[in-house]
């Protein structure tokens, strides 16, 4: 009887196509918005997470805040050693100093951030060499006038390629010559650092030949394998607080905390939009109830005939309930297709990863079915309660 009722429901919708479409429109819109919201929310989260993990989820950035504060005085080259000694889970603490300077090679010139680095820089940032090599401990110790170029800096200064072994001039008051010993692979910018547009010189060379380093601009901390980044970052904060006594004088940021913030925002947005979708489903459900009540009134005679043939009230109730559920499920499926299509188009435009959430599909199906049961119940009870004699003689 179950399948007959489903078949019957489809027959009925087929003969009232426009009415059926209009009555499920609310459900379609509601479900489509739920699917769009959840799919976009997930796509955004996945995209952000991907971006963040490309930055290196295991790094922590420490900045001083404000001028002349206790913290700024604290950001000396020695802080690296103090951090390593006092905070568990730290592998490297890389001091970062950079200044924009003009670079020239022949007639090609380029404005780049010159960064003062040590040999552990590539390790912390998971940064790879394309050709040649990176700054070594020896380069730093002997204050060699060598430079490693970021991908973009290399292509601007050496449009023909083949930079390794050549010399460039770095302008700082006067031109200083540096030998190129390596070119880096391209890497996504992150943590306020545009890797590709920078060039790298040994820290000691930078200090002596380009700009005197008094304070470290910021530290990038690489955590030990298996250490929880958020825990280490909490410990760093606690240690810095112990040193300064002022929580506002420094800032500890990790991609993991950024990801956490984004996820939080997405969650709030999801909740808000889901609320709107729920309202549209509610309105859609009322539309279904209305159309089912009309249907019951129109088919009073049919109900009478079915009762005369032996249909119990339960059977009639089931028939109309199934019809309502089929109607809303149908609307739900259309809504899922629409929502998926729409969110796919949006992700293509925003260049996000398309990450549909199958649990959301399931939820949408269950929800639209639930709306059918909830709003179909009253009309179905009305139908089942009709008196056979009155229904049969209904004109």
């Amino acid at each position, binding site marked *: 009887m179950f399948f007959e009722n489903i078949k019957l429901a489809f027959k009925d919708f087929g003969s009232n196509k426009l009415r059926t479409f209009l009555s499920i429109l609310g459900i379609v819109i509601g479900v489509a918005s739920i699917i769009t919201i959840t799919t976009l929310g997930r796509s955004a989260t996945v995209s952000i997470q991907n971006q963040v993990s490309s930055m290196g989820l295991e790094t922590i950035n420490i900045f001083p805040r404000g001028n002349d504060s206790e913290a700024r005085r604290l950001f000396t080259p020695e802080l690296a050693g103090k951090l390593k000694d006092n905070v568990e889970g730290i592998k490297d603490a890389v001091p970062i100093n950079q200044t924009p300077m003009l670079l020239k090679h022949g007639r090609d010139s380029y404005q780049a951030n010159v960064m003062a680095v040590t040999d552990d820089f590539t390790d912390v940032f998971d940064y790879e060499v394309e050709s040649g090599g990176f700054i070594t401990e020896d380069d730093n110790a002997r204050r060699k006038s060598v430079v490693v170029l970021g991908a973009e800096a290399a292509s601007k200064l050496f449009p023909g390629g083949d930079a390794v072994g050549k010399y460039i001039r770095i302008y700082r008051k006067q031109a200083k010559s540096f030998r190129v010993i390596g070119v880096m692979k391209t890497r996504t910018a992150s943590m306020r650092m545009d890797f590709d547009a920078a060039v790298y010189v040994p820290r000691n060379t930078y200090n002596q030949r380009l700009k005197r380093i008094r304070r470290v601009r910021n530290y990038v901390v690489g955590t030990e394998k298996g250490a929880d980044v958020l825990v280490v970052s909490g410990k760093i904060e606690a240690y810095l607080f112990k040193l300064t006594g002022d929580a506002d004088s420094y800032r500890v940021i990790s991609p993991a905390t950024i990801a956490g913030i984004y996820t939080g925002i997405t969650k709030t947005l999801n909740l808000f939009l889901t609320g709107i979708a729920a309202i549209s489903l509610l309105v859609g459900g009322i539309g279904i109830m209305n159309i089912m009540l009309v249907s019951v009134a129109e088919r009073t005679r049919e109900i009478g005939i079915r009762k005369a043939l032996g249909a119990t009230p339960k059977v009639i109730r089931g028939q109309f309930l199934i019809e309502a559920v089929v109607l809303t499920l149908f609307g739900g499926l259309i809504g899922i297709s629409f929502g998926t299509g729409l969110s796919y188009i949006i992700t293509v435009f925003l260049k996000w990863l398309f990450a549909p959430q199958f649990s959301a599909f399931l939820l949408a199906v269950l929800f639209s079915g639930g709306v059918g049961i909830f709003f179909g119940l009253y009309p179905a009870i009305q139908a089942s309660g009709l008196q056979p*004699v009155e229904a049969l003689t209904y004109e």
Partner: protein
Amino acid sequence: MTASGTIIKIADVKKDYILGKAVIKALRGVTLKIQSGELLAIMGPSGSGKTTLMHLIGCLDIPTSGKIYLEGEDVSELNEEALARIRNRKVGFVFQQFNLLSRISILENVMTPLMYAHVPVKKRRESAEEALKSVGLSDRLTHRPTELSGGQRQRVAIARALVTDPSIILADEPTGNLDTETGRSILEMFNKINGNGKTVIIVTHDPEVGALARKTVHIRDGIITGID
């Protein structure tokens, strides 16, 4: 036809309808015994209460007072669920308006009572095809009722009434919407059904139907005025 016991017993049945503030006394105390295998006509002018009596016999409604027994079972105070089951098992209806379901094929129409009896689909189809064959409509199984003539529709209705093999067939003005010739062939069908041992009750004001019946109950103003 030889009587083999009482199949329907009606004892002092009254039925009131409330229409706004007025109470309409459709039946004012009817007592009647119908023997199994009878072909009975209930005749009376419109408003006499004959259709109400048929509804009560067919368990479509319950009396305001009095008792009705179908095959010995008291059906006068049953709830809607129980009444539906009795209608399904014991009674086959044929209406003046045919009352077929217009959205489905005639085969599906005839299968419907079997669906409510929870007969498996395959068996349903077989029985329905057989019933339609017995009324000469084997070649129209997939047609909608609206594609058939009045006489054909009434034959579908008869097939539907017979398909559950009920002991009682109730017909309410079955020839009312048919021309004389077609009406006659339908009545002949009822005669045959009765010949097969079923109790047939026809509510009518058509004298030709009365002539066919072995027994005629005359009703007027809610009471039986004569049986002949």
